């Protein structure tokens, strides 16, 4: 039984007020709130176990190392990885993609090779590839989106070919509320011996993910969007590919043997974890994964699907509103524009009522150009949002529209 009221009690911040109103937090695509269990895990780590990991031979170092490695196993299991040696902790999705673009891209891309992306990529799955392309002479190709925001898969089939070395795609869109058929893209990539990277920043928090059934070679996600602390995320990669890659950052722990003029590398995943990692945050992410698994990702997906569809229906009733993305199969993301009210102004008016939404380009400037807008407003739901909050949000949008309309 999925009990939202009970879930909400686990999130201390949801009890606060903003401008004298109960907080309605609808900016979950940017970052999620944290359950008490995650916050307590951080505190407990610092109060009882804190030490640097892996190198110390004392009790606290042993405890911290064990908790950190346990978090790695949890994160790997959460995305259906065959084992945890391919699970690398990073600062988040952005760093994960950069790691692949640098450590795999610089070594394997050549002039004339092609990297296939989509028009709807977040800057974090676009700019690293622009840098890799500039460094290697490889070319970028873009799968277009159709009018409803879904990928044009006929074009995908045409674009992915013998020159393709890698296909990289967002699993779920932070603007369009789409879930992309990345398993089909992975098949197309593999037909041409290319690799498939899935940017899971907007999927891992919201959908059941199984990297083996997706058939991808890399999967990247951010902890802070899935109830975990900021400063931690992960990259999963197929071990045989990770083993062939060069390191990303050099420093402590990623080495095996260091001489004055050369070094050899540690085994994966440690080869890619240079310097002191965000230990407490990784352990906190493990607690977040426990929490999500306990709720069941199928249940989370179902709750958000229902809430997203309800919000879509209610918001559609507002005259002249434009809502982006498909009508069916949506996630809990809702991007829209009102002709009378600029997104910035709408955010500010909603904030006055304690409602937090996002306005801007959502780190998707090329997609904004494709949609023909400078910015959109965006409400994004998560496992703790309620139908009453959707109602409050729709009522506030309606009032904002009337407010701006009044100044004729």
């Amino acid at each position, binding site marked *: 039984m999925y009990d939202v009221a009970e879930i909400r009690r686990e999130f201390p911040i949801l009890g606060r007020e903003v401008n004298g109103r109960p907080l309605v937090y609808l900016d979950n695509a940017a970052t999620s709130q944290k359950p008490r269990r995650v916050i307590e895990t951080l505190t407990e780590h610092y109060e009882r176990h804190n030490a640097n990991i892996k190198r110390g031979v004392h009790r606290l170092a042993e405890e911290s190392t064990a908790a950190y490695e346990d978090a790695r196993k949890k994160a790997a299991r959460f995305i259906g990885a065959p084992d945890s040696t391919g699970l690398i902790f990073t600062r988040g999705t952005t760093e994960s993609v950069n790691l692949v673009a640098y450590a795999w891209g610089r070594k394997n891309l050549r002039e004339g090779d092609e990297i296939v992306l989509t028009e709807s990529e977040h800057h974090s799955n676009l700019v690293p590839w622009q840098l890799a392309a500039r460094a290697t002479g490889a070319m970028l190709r873009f799968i277009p989106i159709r009018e409803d925001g879904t990928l044009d898969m006929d074009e995908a089939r045409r674009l992915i070919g013998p020159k393709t070395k890698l296909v990289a795609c967002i699993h779920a869109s932070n603007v369009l509320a789409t879930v992309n058929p990345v398993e089909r893209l992975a098949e197309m990539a593999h037909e041409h011996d290319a690799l498939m990277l899935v940017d899971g920043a907007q999927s891992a928090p919201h959908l059941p993910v199984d990297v083996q059934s997706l058939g991808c070679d890399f999967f990247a996600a951010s902890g802070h969007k899935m109830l975990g602390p900021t400063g931690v995320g992960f990259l999963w990669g197929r071990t045989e590919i990770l083993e062939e890659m060069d390191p990303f950052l050099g420093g402590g722990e990623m080495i095996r043997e260091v001489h004055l003029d050369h070094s050899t590398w540690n085994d994966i995943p440690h080869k890619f974890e240079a310097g002191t990692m965000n230990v407490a945050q990784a352990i906190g992410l493990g607690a977040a994964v426990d929490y999500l698994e306990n709720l069941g990702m199928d249940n989370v997906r179902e709750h958000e699907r229902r809430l997203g569809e309800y919000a879509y229906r209610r918001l559609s009733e507002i005259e002249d509103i434009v809502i982006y993305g498909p009508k069916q199969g949506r996630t809990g993301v809702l991007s829209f524009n009102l002709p009378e009210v600029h997104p910035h102004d709408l955010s500010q008016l909603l904030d006055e009522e304690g409602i937090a939404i996002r306005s801007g380009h959502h780190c998707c400037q090329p997609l904004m150009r494709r949609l023909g807008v400078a910015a959109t407003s965006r409400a994004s739901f998560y496992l703790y949002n309620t139908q009453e909050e959707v109602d409050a949000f729709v009522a506030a949008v309606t009032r904002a529209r009337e407010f*701006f309309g009044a100044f004729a």
Partner: protein
Amino acid sequence: MMRELYTQVIMDHYKRPRNHGEIEGADLHEHLLNPLCGDEVTIYAVFDGDTVADVKFSGRGCSISQASASMMTERLVGKSREEVEREIGEFKGMMTGEKDFPEDDDLAALKGVIQYPSRIRCATLAWTAFQRGLEEQG
């Protein structure tokens, strides 16, 4: 209540912007983007000797950025380069809380913006564009 930010004066400049448009062959022509939100403004100015004879702006953006641009065009016409530079500096000082807002000018309506640091860049967008335009002219 924050709705006070959206005063009649601001909404009037937003809905009926003064000096909105383009000037072909303007002496000063500067385009500026607010990377935070994608809002953009272009400033056009014609000089008669050292004096600003005409200013126009075009672009798209929120009520604050558009109203502030509209107010700026009204305030800067007829001013010398030196006066314009001083006006821009003073306006930026107002937005950082270092200078007082003039009581007798529409600009006073923007005072509420300083409570919302994320919106200050909206208010200063057009002014920064004019400043850059002047710098490029040398």
